[in-house]
């Protein structure tokens, strides 16, 4: 397991980093869902906005509310909303949901290398679900987004089609799969 503080790779049995002594934590929910096709979302339910947030953050990204006092809960995800996803080159997946979501640096934390992370903006992509299709929008990220080689940053919504090749900040390659 990779230490989120110093980046040292530790064996799966370790609970504390052998180099810096920090407690090791499971990767974020997005990667935990790989190999869990039944689609269970986990996280902390925000008392302010009701959404589930990864248990790795303290504040609700929507409302800024405090999450630290809330315990982790498991909630069954809707299979229809979990089938669509963005796949990274290494096989890690980011599931898309029909409620609309923001994809940004936090979603890639500890999935991509620390060198690549700064190229992803905090709110890099907005995902929306309209007329039974996913739409993607780059509201103006610093390093841009291209789909099949076409730059979309600041150019409004783009309808995703199965197999679309998405590149974030010129470094992170993703593929859209509708199921």
């Amino acid at each position, binding site marked *: 397991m990779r230490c*989120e*503080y110093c980046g040292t790779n530790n064996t799966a049995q370790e*609970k*504390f*980093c*052998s*180099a*810096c*002594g*920090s*407690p090791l*934590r499971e990767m974020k929910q997005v990667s935990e869902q790989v190999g869990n096709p039944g689609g269970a979302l986990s996280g902390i339910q925000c008392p302010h906005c009701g959404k589930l947030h990864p*248990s*790795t*953050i*303290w504040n609700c990204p929507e409302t800024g509310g405090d999450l*630290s006092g809330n315990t982790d809960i498991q909630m069954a995800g809707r299979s229809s909303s979990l089938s669509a996803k963005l796949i990274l080159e290494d096989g890690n997946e980011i599931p898309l949901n029909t409620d609309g979501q923001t994809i940004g640096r936090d979603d890639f934390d500890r999935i991509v290398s*620390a060198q690549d992370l700064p190229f992803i903006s905090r709110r890099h992509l907005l995902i929306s679900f309209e007329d039974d299709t996913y739409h993607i929008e780059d509201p103006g990220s610093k390093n841009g987004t291209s789909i099949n080689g076409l730059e979309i940053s600041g150019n409004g919504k783009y309808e995703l089609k199965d197999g679309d090749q998405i590149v974030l900040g010129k470094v992170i390659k993703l593929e859209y799969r509708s199921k």
Partner: protein
Amino acid sequence: MGSSVSLKCTLNRQYVSADKSAIVYLAIDILPDEFSQVQEMLPSAICLLIDRSGSMRGKKLDQAKAAAVGLINQLQPGDAVGLVTFSSKIDVVAEMEQLQFFDITDLKRNIEKIKCGGSTELYHGLDSAYLQFIRTGRTESNLVKRVILLSDGQPTDHTPESHFLKLADEMGNVGIAIMALGIGKEYNENLLGDIAEHSHGIWKHIADASDIPAIFTQQLEETKAVVRTAPVVVMQLDPGIEIKGVYKAAPDVYPITELSRTENGEVRILPGDIRLGETQILVLRLSLPPRKEGKFSLGKIRIEGEESPDQDIAVSYTNDENLWSIENDAFARGTFLKAETQAMTRKGLSGDSTALWKASQQAETMVRDPGLSKIPEMKDDMSKVVDIINKSKKGLTEEETKVAKHEMTQAKRGKSR
């Protein structure tokens, strides 16, 4: 010496995995005894060391003179004071002496006569201030010893920084703390910061010359609040245990890069004078060797000259994963990481972009670390670090950089847990 102080040691883990090496964090709280409040105040010996180079001309020197007179007015019989100025040459305006032996009118007249001109021979000025204590035999431990240094410029004496640090170390070892006050944007805050830390003092940025008298008064008040001078934390660690890093974490924050070791393997750390009601905190990162199951002592910690019993710190090596997978108290680790992040940020603000990048990564990781969420002020302090780093990326003026660096030397004061 002053009143007695006690120690409280906490490890972040009580259990580690048997037959494996491990990294643990240790916090050492040094707190003055509650009874100290009824103690008599310790007398102080203060040497004022004032820059009178050409650039101090005008308001800065006028305010410095007013501040010196103001400070002398607030001293009590039994306190000693000296005054040295430096420019191209060093002038001892007043040899260090107890207040009652001065002709105060004469002293004030001599202060009034100080004129500006010349360069900034800081090293010799500092050395001369040090000699004021040595020559008059003022090194005893029941005296609170301070050099209050005021400068507005980069030293011109081309003395290598290592010489300054050696001198500051020497002063720190006899308990003379340098209060380094920098004014304006020209002075070298890295040098002033380093000599302050090496002597267990502080550095402070003064934005406005009219604040000088108030800051001198504040320095005097802090001197008067000292209930115990220069305690020495003595650690006898068991063989096999390595110290991987040490920070002073409160009330001010800086790395302790050089540890002195005695012949019998004891490590001595001087955290600086203890003020009334204020806890000093040292944090250490320790590497433990693999051991078989059982409880092992890491070593003993005590304050030199104190009668209170040694603190015995121990961990249990165990095969029970339910025990060794838990961090019992994240305070020591969180406090260490906070101090490390602040120190890295300071380095980053001095132009080391890798340090700045690492600091921002670490601060963000800490904000997400659920183990640290219970530590008071942690989130606020780390958000402040992130904020400072973000601002610095947009560009800070020289003066803003100094203020930001100074903030990174501070921890929340006197908060006990």
